[in-house]
């Protein structure tokens, strides 16, 4: 029997049906059509499926879909506001911080969770915060620069 789940998805009320043992990742991709969240391993090791659950970054492959009842989920599809990209998205483009791009949604979601709590991170803080996200193409150099750039831009906008 499927479960009926009421949740908040990308700032909008949403409901869906899922099997009791279905992961949040599967529900997002298969029930809700939000394929921006990627599966790289299914074991919580690569971070490609990162989403925000009540503002905290989680590996959606390790969360049961039923657990989001009454909670708020933010996916990569909810990071930009309307036609305005988030500063992280702009910085990733400007810094060429993606090559194949499959890990990019997870990195942007995870980095947003960092900047939500710390708008002035050091390089080392960025590197350790993002240590749960694997990228095989870039060597992380341009990703780290993009996150630091986005943080600087956001600080200057707020100042």
């Amino acid at each position, binding site marked *: 029997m499927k479960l009926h789940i009421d949740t908040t998805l990308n700032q909008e009320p949403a409901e869906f049906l899922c099997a009791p043992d279905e992961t949040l990742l599967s529900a997002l991709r298969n029930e809700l059509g939000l394929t921006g969240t990627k599966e790289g391993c299914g074991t919580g090791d690569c971070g490609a499926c990162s989403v925000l659950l009540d503002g905290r970054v989680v590996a959606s492959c390790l969360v049961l879909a039923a657990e989001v009842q009454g909670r708020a989920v933010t996916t990569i599809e909810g990071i930009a506001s309307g036609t305005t990209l988030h500063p992280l998205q702009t910085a990733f483009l400007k810094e060429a911080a993606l090559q*194949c791009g499959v890990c990019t949604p997870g990195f942007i979601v995870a980095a947003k969770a960092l900047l939500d709590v710390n708008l002035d991170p050091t390089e080392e803080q960025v590197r350790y915060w993002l240590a749960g996200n694997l990228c095989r193409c870039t060597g992380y150099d341009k990703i780290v620069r993009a996150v630091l750039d986005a943080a600087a831009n956001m600080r200057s906008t707020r100042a």
Partner: protein
Amino acid sequence: MSEQIFTTVGTRPIRHDGVDKVTGRANYGADLSLPGMLYGVVVRSPHAHARIRSIDTSAALAVPGVKAIITGQDVPLVDVKLGMGEGAMDLKDMSDNLLARTKALYHGHAVAAVAATSLAAARAAAKLVCVDYELLEPVLSVDRALEPGAPILHDDLVTQARPPIEATGPTNIAGRLELQRGDLAAGFAAADIVVERVFRTPTSHQGYIEPHACVARVNEDGRINIWTSTQGPFLVRDATAAMLGLDAANIKVTPSEIGGGFGGKIPVYLEPLAVVLARQTQRPVKMVMTRDEVFRASGPTSATKIRVKLGAKKDGSIVAASASLYYEAGAYRGSPSGAGAMCMFAPYNIPNFHIDAYDVVVNKPKVAAYRAPGSPMAALAIESAIDEIATTLGLDPVEIRLTNAVTEGNLAPYGPPYGPIGFRAVLERVKASDHWQTPVAPGVGRGLACGFWFNAGMSSSATVMLGSDGSAAVITGNPDIGGTRAAQAMMVAEELGIPVERVRPSVADTDTAGFTEITAGSRVCYATGMAVIEASRDVREQLRGRAAKIWGVTVDETRWEHGRVVPVTPSDARTPLTVPEIAAKLAKTGGPIIGRASVNPPMAGPSFAAHICDIQVDRETGVSKVVRYTAVQDAGKAVHPSYVEGQMQGGASQGIGWALNEEYIYSAAGVMENAGFLDYRMPVASDLPMIDALIVEVPHPGHPYGVRGVGEVPIVPPLGAVANAMSHATGLRFTELPLSPPRVLARLQQGT
């Protein structure tokens, strides 16, 4: 080649596919779903080497939701070769790798496939497929494979050898290549110092983040659609057709966005199975590998054993070199041992050498290409030996390489003379770099290593379509792994003199794009780019014709100049016409303009690279950390420097992972015991420093802009650079990768 003036090439525009990729909209292999779709799951051998006596699918077929189960009996074993570039791909092995017929040759070898209405049902049924195996001893190393009396993987295997050798009965040696020059004995006799070492590298994986995935649909009229994440949509089409006995003209392959490949998404694993299941069920079938399957059943690269012997004079000049290379092929022939042999001495001018290289089958997954296939392991051996000689003689690591570095006119070890190459320029850039100029910090070891890669040409096509608004679209058939669409748009912008934002690049399906070989060999920016440039020039020629029409003159009275058509005669009062001005009159001057080109350059310009690695080792735990890293490379011409730097940084970090941590750990039974990202430890952000990428540009004369390939050579030096750095940090010479904490600690405790 005179210095060219570029307007767009060499700048850093935002990539055209970027917004889709930072918003989650870009569709990768597993992102497509179709109505009525079934889920396909592969049943895999739990044994590394076993004869298949029988397969019973009755219990699995009884699982509710199961629509079809196929085994090797349902797919003909074909014995054909598929023409591919300069070589030919043997589809018999690929076909047997797809579904084992008589023998399972590695743990994870596919033996059956199930299609069901849900993934859960398909997985449940897969567990109930009952295979009766007769267990055989697994062969898990080249040493065992070559022992007299070792189990033979393929009774009919014949050693393919250049030069030919006499066949001597059953063997696990699939191939042998020998290269030589000069008088080896005389060379070593003249040497003041001789170093001989044996190096070993483990099986390691490309580690792309996106697992293999595809969807296949068979239409009512028999036409077949395949959507897949691949480096070669035309290869998927032709290999699938050949392996299933189908007409390739009835198959359309649409490449998805590709989440990394590094060579590993060249082979065909899932697509033919999905097609057979779709044909049997008349429903679309989706198949996605798990990460576990990617490790166990897609192609990693060879574990190797390499012996190298190097003789040099006191001034560091190398007078003799010999090497024996043994590369594991996995279950079927085809390791990159030959490429390793050709690359190994390629950076150095060595008067006397001998190399023999062996392709050896073992009970592990069939290796696939992995970024400069075969070269990094060979470079580890030669670069470590050179480092040891330099250390013993008290020579500077850059100077000893400059003493021996090849230059234009020198013969490559594999035959032809080099054209203009950038190896010396790369070494000079190393010398001038801030990293090399900065003294080594206390407690840190610094290593230098170099690398060579051929780069590939091969067939490519491109179409450029001019819009009446003066914008342009460019279509090619190469999946874009690292920014090649942006580079292609830049080439169109460069040639037509229009803003790069006004060019729309697409990667099209096999019915839409002209034939193009795989995205591999660092060839897309080079060869497909050449087609794009020529197609743009075709547009330019047509624009001259239209300008001539507007002016009422002959084409000969017009010429192209910086994004516009101008009259040939300077006194001519006619105002030059820009692309948008001519484009606005397309309908009145003859209709739309479409430029097209196809190319088949025989070989690209070779690439050389040199990397500097600073490493710090904790002597109590053996844990090491790369604290500074610089990559220098000759790109010929960097079209989009950010993405060239990205290739250099990515290759460096992949190589650092290979050097320090990555390895397949096998049980005695041949089962990989670390088939996940937790235990197969690839570098994460906190493991690495920033990686300085210094681009050298020595133009390749075979390309209109001087482009060489850039994607592969960056993974060649890191193994040696890290090992040399480790050696200087510890005072111990390391010859076996990975340099993981337990191995380093053991050596530190031994003290030798």
